[in-house]
């Protein structure tokens, strides 16, 4: 009897001890607590393809609990089409700072974007179609719907409001540049700091003329769409003009047919300007290869066979930079490089006699031509740099005191 009582007491104790665990396990599937609200809105700053959906986190959120969003074109529809399914412990507002900023509460709300046209693929949809959404929590066989039905239209936006900061910066910089261009027309004797690489152009061309050897101009690998290639063709024009004056031989190697056509035209015009149209030979501006390493092999071959007296590497370069410049250095040529590919700058510095680093590439055309209007842009660049330095110092000081709004001001989305 005493044993029976003991066993009963023990079983009761064990049952009481494990009761909360049974309840807790049972609750995760049996009692899903749906979010208190569910909202839909047109995704801001998009092409009009998506609708944004957001709802607060639920105490039932767990790795094995899912949120399922159903879509319909009719508010009283059947909502059978599943638009989105996510794990309930993923997708928060923190992933879209361009919409919600960096608030601490962003982690308390879920956020997803749905492309209704993609989901309702094949159906004829009006541009002003209103879409309706229902949110359900699903865990195993249990499914609980949120009472609210959210609705929104997907509309395209004409202005990306989060890029307004970029727009303002662009307008300010453009205004500064245009001001200095106008200013330079009135005051043509503007001081320009010395750029050794560009001062050495005359020296390199003079050397080639004296030696009776060609000058080799090597374009980078990017096409005419690249700003560095445009800058390179501008420099080519200035160099070709001087070469026409010196009566030296210029060879221009290209890897892009469009760049080649532009270069031919630029060189031809420069010879015309110099009054030496007879000296222009279109065969001296040619395409050697369109692929990176065949281009390197071909240009390296030209360097070793013809041993140009001066090599110009101007434009955007990749891994071929060092191979080209080192081959040129081995032939004993005077070498001037100019690139905005900052990863290749150290290689050019080590192997070339002079290197135009980054912005100097863009300044070269103005520096060589000494045209007042072009020189005005150089002064504007310096003013822009001054402004940037002030902002950087201010931002650093303010960030050190915990004021980060200046960082947010320049953020781009």
């Amino acid at each position, binding site marked *: 009897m005493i044993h029976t009582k003991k066993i009963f007491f023990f079983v009761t104790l064990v049952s009481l001890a494990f009761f909360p665990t049974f309840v807790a396990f049972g609750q995760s599937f049996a009692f899903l607590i749906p979010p208190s609200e569910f909202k839909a809105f047109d995704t801001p700053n998009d*092409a*009009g*393809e998506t609708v944004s959906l957001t709802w607060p986190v639920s105490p039932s959120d767990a790795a094995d609990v899912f949120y399922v969003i159903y879509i319909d074109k009719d508010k009283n529809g059947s909502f059978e089409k599943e638009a989105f399914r996510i794990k309930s412990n993923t997708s928060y507002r923190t992933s879209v700072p361009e919409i919600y900023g960096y608030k601490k509460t962003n982690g308390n709300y879920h956020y997803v974007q749905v492309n209704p046209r993609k989901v309702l693929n094949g159906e004829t949809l009006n541009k002003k179609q209103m879409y309706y959404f229902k949110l359900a929590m699903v865990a195993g066989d249990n499914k609980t719907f949120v009472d609210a039905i959210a609705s929104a239209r997907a509309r*395209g*936006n*004409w*202005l*990306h409001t989060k*890029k307004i900061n*970029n727009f303002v910066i*662009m307008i300010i*910089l*453009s205004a500064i*540049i*245009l001001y200095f*261009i106008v200013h330079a027309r009135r005051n043509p004797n503007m001081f320009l700091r010395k750029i050794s690489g560009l001062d050495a152009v005359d020296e390199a061309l003079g050397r080639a003329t004296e030696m009776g050897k060609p000058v080799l101009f090597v374009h980078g690998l990017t096409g005419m769409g690249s*700003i560095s290639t445009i800058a390179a*063709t*501008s420099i080519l*024009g*200035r160099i070709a*003009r001087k070469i026409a004056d010196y009566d030296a031989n210029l060879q221009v190697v290209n890897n892009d*047919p469009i760049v*080649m*056509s*532009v270069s031919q035209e*630029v060189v*031809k*015009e*420069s010879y015309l*300007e110099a009054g030496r149209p007879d000296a222009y030979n279109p*065969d001296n501006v*040619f*395409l050697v290869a*369109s*692929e990176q*390493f*065949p281009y*390197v*092999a071909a240009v390296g071959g030209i360097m070793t*066979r013809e041993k140009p007296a001066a090599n110009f590497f101007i434009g955007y370069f990749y891994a071929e930079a*060092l191979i080209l410049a*080192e081959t040129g250095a081995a032939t004993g040529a005077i070498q001037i490089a100019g690139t*905005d590919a*900052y990863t290749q700058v150290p290689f050019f510095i*080590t*192997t070339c006699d002079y290197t135009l680093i*980054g*912005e100097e*590439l*863009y*300044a070269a055309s103005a520096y060589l031509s000494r*045209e007042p209007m072009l020189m005005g*842009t*150089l002064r*504007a*660049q310096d003013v*822009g*740099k001054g402004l*940037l330095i002030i902002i950087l110092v201010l931002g650093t000081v303010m960030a050190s005191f915990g004021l980060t709004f200046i960082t947010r001001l320049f953020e781009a989305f």
Partner: protein
Amino acid sequence: MNFLKRTIPLIIAFVMGVLMAMQYFVPHKLSQDLLEVVSRWDRIIAGFAVFIGAYSLFHLHWTRIKRRVAGWGYSVFVYFGAIITLIFGLLNGGKFFWNDKQEGTMFDWLYYYIQVPAGATIFSILAFFIASAAYRTFRARTNESTVLLIAAIIVMLGRVPIGNYISQYIPVIADWIMAVPNLAAKRGILLGMSLGAVATSIKIIFGIERSYLGGGD
């Protein structure tokens, strides 16, 4: 003639320059479609330009062969390679060029077993060139090159396990060099470059820089 060669290209450069700059700030579908159309035009023009490039290449090498200039034998190889590739490309593994491209044909073989290894060979030369360039640069002739030499040794050692064996501080100093002075210099160059790119774009859009059209004014 001047109107066709100068004025019209300048108008096109202005209109397209402003349009594409504004396109960046307009997320609307019409704006995205415009970008797509312009990109497609770019690809079409590039497609036609291939013929100009091919003509230039073959004309250049034909002239070299004709004049027997130094290294004219390489020009023969250009023709040889182009003709062989063209023939196998047109044959398309016996299905001919009007059918979809076949896999595992002689055309693929030429690419995978000649062009790719040849390119890799040229690329591998880079390792030797880096060594020779490093030797020249790291000779401690001036104060600057001494600093460069010391920084380079620390960074190189910090990137390999032996650096950690020598001292646990070497990888830390290497990371600091890369994350602070190196990054600061890189950002300085990038800021200057971006300003230069904006200035060049404005010069082109407003027709101040015209040398890319040919001539200096």
